[in-house]
């Protein structure tokens, strides 16, 4: 259909909003990263790529970068492995009621604000009154662990929390993908004598290609951007910067030190990281067949 007046009427306000709050800021971030920019100062000189060269010698930046990569890879790998398994176990259930019950239960943490659930987990991890240490002490007779105060344990503690908080989405997406696989494939495999595990690897996994690729991309992108749990569970980057990540470092640099030029440079790095990893992932998981 054609109706240029209508199209113009609808799209003009949308494009104005989009330009102001998306396109302009994206361009702005790259421009600001080339300045020594502090909004409360009157002089903000252009410094070229100096912010980026400064990054190389910034110990906290390097630490945040490695922490971010470690966090993303470990959490996403565990998340995908666990959610695929759980989704498959759910599809094995015969009762529809039980299936939807488990899906809802696993999804529950996803709808809680991360700040709130992370605050609860700060209590769970507490040395004296926390549930986790009580179980360690009472059931396993292991001395209490100062999860949040020990450099070696903060990041694992945040990984465990994030898995708990974020599994539900992927379980639902994966089990929807599995439900879409025609049952005759499984029946044929069963006739051929393939067990559950064999069926999972020869039918479910290969036929889930599109869902898998989509879920992996979304999970990667969202985990690179996680912020709330780092602020709540690792106060000020954690002991010895052990849980400082790029998102937290950007926030701190921009809104506490007001060094917005430098913060923008870090955000550009984060952006490029996300682009590169999703591009690699899309290449590897390229799926051009269906069923």
């Amino acid at each position, binding site marked *: 259909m054609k*109706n240029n007046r209508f199209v113009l009427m609808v799209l003009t306000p949308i494009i104005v909003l989009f330009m102001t709050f*998306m396109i302009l800021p994206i361009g702005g971030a790259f421009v600001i990263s080339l300045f020594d920019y502090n*909004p409360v100062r009157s002089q903000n000189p252009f410094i070229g790529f100096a912010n980026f060269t400064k990054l190389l010698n910034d110990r906290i930046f390097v630490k945040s970068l490695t922490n971010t990569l470690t966090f993303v890879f470990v959490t996403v790998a565990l998340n995908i492995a666990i959610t695929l398994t759980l989704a498959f176990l759910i599809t094995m*259930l015969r009762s529809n009621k039980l299936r939807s019950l*488990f899906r809802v239960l696993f999804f529950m943490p996803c709808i809680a604000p991360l700040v709130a659930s992370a605050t609860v987990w700060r209590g769970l991890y507490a040395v004296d009154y926390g549930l986790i240490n009580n179980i360690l002490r009472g059931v396993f007779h292991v001395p209490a662990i100062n999860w949040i105060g020990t450099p070696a344990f903060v990041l694992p503690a945040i990984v465990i929390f994030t898995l708990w908080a974020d599994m539900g989405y992927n379980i639902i997406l994966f089990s929807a993908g599995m439900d879409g696989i025609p049952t005759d494939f499984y029946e044929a495999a069963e006739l051929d004598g393939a067990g559950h595990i064999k069926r999972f690897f020869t039918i479910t996994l290969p036929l889930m290609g599109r869902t898998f690729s989509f879920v992996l991309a979304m999970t990667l992108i969202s985990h690179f951007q996680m912020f709330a749990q780092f602020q709540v569970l690792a106060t000020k980057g954690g002991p010895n910067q052990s849980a400082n990540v790029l998102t937290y470092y950007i926030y701190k640099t921009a809104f506490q030190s007001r060094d917005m030029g430098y913060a923008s440079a870090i955000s550009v790095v984060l952006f490029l990281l996300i682009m590169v990893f999703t591009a690699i992932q899309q290449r590897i998981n390229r799926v051009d067949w269906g069923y």
Partner: protein
Amino acid sequence: MITRKKIHWGQVVPLTILTTVAILVIAPYIWMLLTTFKSTPEIRQNPGKILPINWTLSGYHYVLTESPFLRWFINSVIVSVTVTVAVVFTSTLVGFVFSKYQFRFKKVLFWFILATMMVPYQITMIPQFLIIVELNLYDSLWALIVPALVSAFGVYLCRSFCDDIPDSLCEAAIIDGAGPFRIYWTVILPLLKPCIGALSIFIFLEVWNEYLKPLIMLSQVNKMTLPLALSYFSTARIHDIGSIMSASSLIMLPATILLLVFQKQFIKGVAMTGMK
């Protein structure tokens, strides 16, 4: 309930594993709720006791009387409802235009909108903050509403749903003399119902749970939305665990109850966003 039919051994293994994981998933909720019924001294003195010794509502009482909790709740409702309604309107309308109308630069424009979905908030947040300050919206709820009125994801979702609606329906409406708005309102919107449901849930939760944006856009205590307010509250009352857990549970419960009531729609909605 286990029925008297013969036990399917093939069901026992998945059921056992799933139940164990489910207990692990629910445990934090149970612990949180039980802790809210304890006084802070009791929490500290009897760490091993799971059940409260002296049941008390003092934590809830403190949150509801000594903090502007109701104000925070209303702020959250205002922002989340306004943004959800606006996004549903803009997404369906723009999705309809991109799906059913031919115009110049259509492909480029759509590609542009899609590409912004890949951009992390961290990259836009600094310039967005400066723009908000420039527009005099800093420290008001508008700072959370105005930039969120259009959603790239929403446009994308609605367009793919519109693509499934046959063009002949729109053409028939034109022959009947309907203008574009009428087609949108009477033909497209009713057919987009499932898509609107999924999109509303998605956007509402996203805005309701938002933390980083309010953190940089708001500063007055009275302007805060719930997640930011909780972080403020738990920093101010850092040692009062009873009140902190009560505040957390008050913030987590409304959405959780909504989920349990509308579970079918929620699960379908999430699955739908992944399929398109």
